């Protein structure tokens, strides 16, 4: 019986530390319906033995929610950046290859350092300038259609798929990436947030800002949240241009 149990083969690109050389190891886990990549990695944790019977250190990766909302478990699976938890083995060709998203510095195995994206959120001033968290008599009413657009963009979980897929993010260019850029649009369309729109547009005019976007459209292809990134990038691009023109005339 045990022999004809279906197996899933995973070839994992590992790396012991930021400066170490990557190497590959192959693992096999028992197939079961609905198995996803995080669940498969958890099986390896319980018995960290390679296909050729070598006992090794368990694979290191990051995950939290396992529901595709936290963004933690992004990695490159069969060549494409995606969330490991929502990647069902049934939908993947075997052997399955797992690799870290190398647009970001690798810490260990599939664990990467994405702090650069959170720094970009500071740069674009990704927040509403509320006076404070104390009580105020009221909050502004909002156009329900605009609010729906905001809701869509606000799903961005800073996972980094769009940066990993973008040809303009990397050592050759300093583009901050579609995800963090588009967050500026989210705050610009908010009734309070729009007061600071000029500041956010200025922030996108500098080095690595929106002019570094090469319009390859890869981002929108890989976004696990189906955010219409290119639509909002285009909109922001127009807003930035308008703002730049206004700057010239106001000089």
């Amino acid at each position: 019986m045990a022999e004809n149990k279906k197996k899933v083969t995973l070839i994992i690109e590992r790396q012991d530390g930021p400066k170490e050389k990557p190497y590959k190891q192959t693992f096999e886990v028992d197939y079961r319906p609905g198995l996803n990549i995080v669940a498969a990695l958890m099986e390896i944790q319980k018995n960290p033995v390679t296909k050729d019977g070598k006992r090794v250190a368990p694979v290191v990766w990051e995950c939290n929610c396992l529901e595709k909302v936290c963004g933690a478990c992004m990695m490159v699976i069969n060549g494409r950046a995606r969330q490991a938890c929502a990647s069902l083995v049934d939908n993947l060709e075997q052997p399955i290859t797992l690799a870290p998203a190398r647009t970001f510095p690798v810490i260990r195995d599939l664990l990467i350092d994405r702090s650069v994206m959170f720094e970009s959120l500071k740069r674009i001033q990704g927040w509403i300038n509320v006076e404070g968290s104390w009580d105020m008599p009221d909050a502004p009413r909002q156009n329900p259609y605009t609010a729906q657009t905001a809701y869509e963009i606000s799903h961005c979980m800073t996972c980094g798929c769009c940066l990993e897929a973008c040809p303009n993010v990397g050592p050759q260019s300093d583009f901050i990436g579609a995800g963090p850029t588009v967050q500026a649009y989210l705050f610009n369309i908010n009734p309070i947030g729009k007061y600071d729109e000029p500041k956010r547009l200025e922030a996108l005019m500098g080095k690595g800002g929106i002019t570094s976007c090469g319009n390859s459209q890869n981002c929108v292809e890989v976004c696990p949240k189906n955010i219409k990134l290119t639509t909002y990038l285009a909109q922001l691009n127009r807003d930035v241009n308008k703002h730049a023109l206004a700057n010239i005339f106001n000089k």
Partner: protein
Amino acid sequence: MADKKKIIIVGGGLSGLMAALKVCELGGEVDLFSYCPVKRSHSLCAQGGINACMDLKGEHDSIYEHFDDTVYGGDFLADQEAVKGMVEAAPKLIKMFDRMGVPFTRTPEGTLDLRNFGGQKNKRTCFAGSTTGQQLLYALDEQVRRWEVKGGVKKYEYWEFIRIIKNKDGICRGIVAQNMNSMEIVPFRADAVILATGGPGQVYARCTASTICNGSAVSAVYQQGAEIGNPEFIQIHPTAIPGSDKNRLMSEACRGEGGRVWVWRDNPETGEKERWYFLEDMYPAYGNLVPRDVASRAIYKVCVHMNLGMHNPNRVYLDLSHIPADYLERKLGGILEMYGDFMGKDPRKVPMEIFPSIHYSMGGIWVDLKHHTNIPGLLASGECDYQYHGANRLGANSLLSAAYSGTISGPEAMRVAKSGELGDPLTDRELEDAKQEAVDEFEKILKMDGPENAHQLHHEMGDIMYQYVSIERDNIGLAKCMEELKKILKRWDNIGLTDHGHWANQEAMFVRQLRNMILYAMVITKCALQRDESRGAHAKIVLDENNQRVTDEKGDLVFMPRDDKRFMKTSIATYDPETEEPVVTYREFNHSYIKPRLRNYAVAKKE
């Protein structure tokens, strides 16, 4: 310049971030610790919504009604003074979130839309589609990032809290934490410490919570003398998609928006095969919107005792397929997509298949009304504390309690920090000793080379806890569970690591967490064993003299009744280092506003 007060906040979920904002606004400095970037904290899993009496639907909803629903829903075990404060603040908190840019779902008029939730007759739940927690968390994350830029907050992300440090007077004045990449163990000084580390779902291994909700921090401070309140009250959510890695929640909002729960059965009179909407049948007044403990027990009964579930494994249907697709998309889009992602079926067309799962802990660190623990200088807020929900939490009340408690713990930490009540700061010696202890413990773990695998052991513990301390409990099972947990604790000593290194060693950290989880499992189990009644999520079956489960003339299990005389009290668990088990005592609480009455969801609630 007046000296700045330093507050350490452990946890960057809704509660920790709310507290951080308050501390900054009061001029304090925050060191914020979290397993993950705070933007990835578990609060973002919350789907359905957050309760506040906004009364925007012409229903004459009132704050009193929210108060009464919460106390009644909690089976009269919640501190009523605390609940009163929370429900009164709720509408103001919603306005704050709205100003901060949370994209709440709106009516065509541009005001906030509200939906129904379990255990409440009025529409009182504010929501942002089906990702309310994500949206609320992001709003606070953004505000805290603003303070990071301004200089009030220093983040320590990818740091694990290990333990608190007390000064010579037993006052908490710092913590020891470990960098999860470099493995460096560092002691930190503070004027006061707030724990906001969330729930302990991972004690059951498979639950609706994130993998980082392990309760390890709570267990650590429990072992250092913090009292735990009402830990036996663990909420089981009726509608989750069972999975080997995680049980994924299908929000109560599904039922709030009209979802119906059913199974096939033969009609008892005609014998014809029919859909049995058993919740509507059993509880005509609330139907599918009975509170979670009630719904979970009903599903369990239908599957396990009546054999009507879809067999192997047991499932019942949660059906939305009668609701127009565009309405569903707008109100529940996110989670329907999730069902499709993980199950490969479209819930707009076919009923979903679900079963109850461990979900939330009503109990946690005991705190007073101002969120002080029994250890001076240590505060706790959010799901890790025991306040507000009594024996059962109403859906959409915990995002509220998490945020609200942060608005109390933050300012209160600042108040005590300034008051001079907190004695001397930690000496270098005290810091060094605390660090050394943690280093020694970690080095010992790194050297473990027994035959047991920590993850396997964790899995087994989860199975044991599900078997004995979930929907239906009895004293034989609970006693057995204590014995099994003691064996697991022994087996922990025989764990072997395959990774003995000092770089991003997740295995070693997990081994340390696991021990804390085992000790916390004992806290839950022992308190359940000692509480001889049924109340809210704690349902205990009567045993006969031969220790067999007693059934009535219809063959239904007989549960112990609620016993207000003996048990309308908070269970308090304190750690006994000798036995490594909790000592359980009972404490009075404030229930002066609403007199206890029997909880019965078959009929409309009477006040």
